[in-house]
């Protein structure tokens, strides 16, 4: 039944990676369609007219948009296998809080570290390191953010690992020196097939981001 589920995808998008990981965790078969973001397909524009962005999950012809909303949808529909959100309401709230923190504080700031220069980049670098340390604090001694099992917050954050090389190279700093536990956590996640098969190589991502950066600078 693989034509029942379509993912409008883009190889280097951390948000699309979240969805790929969730689908893999649940053992769901689907058709991935790679979008050309400079020439968006009519299907993408039809399925996500508000944001015109990937990822979009199309299930039985109906679109679900926004990566964390998609992951929750997947978790609720395929609830019998590998639950991503915990069952207790307080722990669920906590998982949502930290996934939301990742969206607010990690990716936008990270983008400025590899994408900007000068003062803007410096300020972003400081903020990013601070936010990563906050995450490390939340992780503590646990193997995963969810505790013993890989869960929602882990899914939200792990695609960020694909930016590590880019951040260190552009920002001229060492992530492992600043956040050793977070690096250990990332490597632990990468041992899961759902993660390692969903994340592209860091250097490949770096080359792609540097091309993007040239385009921003040209504008």
């Amino acid at each position, binding site marked *: 039944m693989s034509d029942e589920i379509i993912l409008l995808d883009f190889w280097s998008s951390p948000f699309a990676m979240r969805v790929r990981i969730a689908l893999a965790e649940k053992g769901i078969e689907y058709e991935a369609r790679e979008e050309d973001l400079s020439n968006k397909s009519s299907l993408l524009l039809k399925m996500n007219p508000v944001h015109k962005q990937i990822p979009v999950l199309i299930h039985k012809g109906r679109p679900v948009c926004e990566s964390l909303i998609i992951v929750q949808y997947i978790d609720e529909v395929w609830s019998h296998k590998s639950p991503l959100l915990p069952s207790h*309401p*307080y722990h669920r*709230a906590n998982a949502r809080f930290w996934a*939301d923190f990742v969206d607010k504080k990690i990716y936008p700031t990270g983008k400025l570290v590899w994408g900007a220069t000068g003062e803007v980049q410096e300020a972003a670098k400081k903020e990013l390191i601070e936010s990563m340390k906050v995450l490390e604090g939340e992780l503590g001694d646990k193997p995963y953010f969810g505790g013993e099992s890989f869960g929602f917050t882990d899914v939200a954050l792990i695609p960020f690992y694909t930016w590590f090389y880019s951040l260190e190279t552009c920002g001229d700093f060492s992530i492992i020196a600043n956040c050793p536990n977070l690096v250990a956590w990332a490597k632990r996640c990468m041992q899961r097939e759902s993660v390692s098969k969903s994340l592209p190589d860091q250097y490949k991502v770096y080359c792609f981001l540097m091309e993007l950066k040239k385009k921003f600078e040209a504008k």
Partner: protein
Amino acid sequence: VSTQAISDVVFIFISASEAGTSQHNIYIKTAQICGCERKGDMAESNVKVLGTWASPFVMRVKIALHLKSVRYEDVEEDLLAPKSELLLKSNPVYKKIPVFFHAHNPICESLIILQYIDEVWTTSASSILPSDPYERSQSRFWAAYVDDKFFPALRRLLIGATEEDKKAALAEVVEGTVVLEGAFGELSKGKAFFGGDNIGFVDIALGSLLGWIEVIGKQCETKLVSEAKTPRLVQWADCFSAHEAVKDVLPDVDKLADFGLKLRAKILKALAPTN
């Protein structure tokens, strides 16, 4: 003491218990009516909202609690004063209100709080999110749209320093209302609310902004939710504002306007470059 007075008291407590949760206790207060002073409020001692009357995000939490008939302690934070110890301690990450406390556990971020309330107080007839996963994803999508796209544009309109800034923000806000009018058509399926027959997640997310929408609109001398462009939203706004769970939470518009001026001044002062 008349038997009528006693049965009134018992009636009140039984109704509250039926409407609410298993955590409501039935107090037979015959002894108190006879002699002592009435016991204070019936708020569940372990449910607290740290917020302010003017914040739409705090309003969301209160509306949800009213919908579920959960009594709570209302702790006011003064937005014009330095942040309280309680706020800094309970929300160290963002230092923002609302903070919701349940059994001493703090929960932050209004939409996350709403989902928590919906998941804990399930015996009530009023479900905030729908039960179907696809409909839930749609509700989450539109609530996120309100927070990620609509509210920031509204805020830019409030604090816009130049005419150009205000004009650009106004265009964005109006466009947002048109998009939301479309969403209303899709989600309400002909009923009065985004949530259908009763108010739900999207109603609360957007409806909590109505006071500010009116205040900011008056400042710009424009009706931001207009009959011309968004007739269904106009009607929805009236229904929402009149709802039992909402009407005591939405603030007086003049009081809010006055507060808005003070808040705008405070924000602009904070944003101004220092020499």
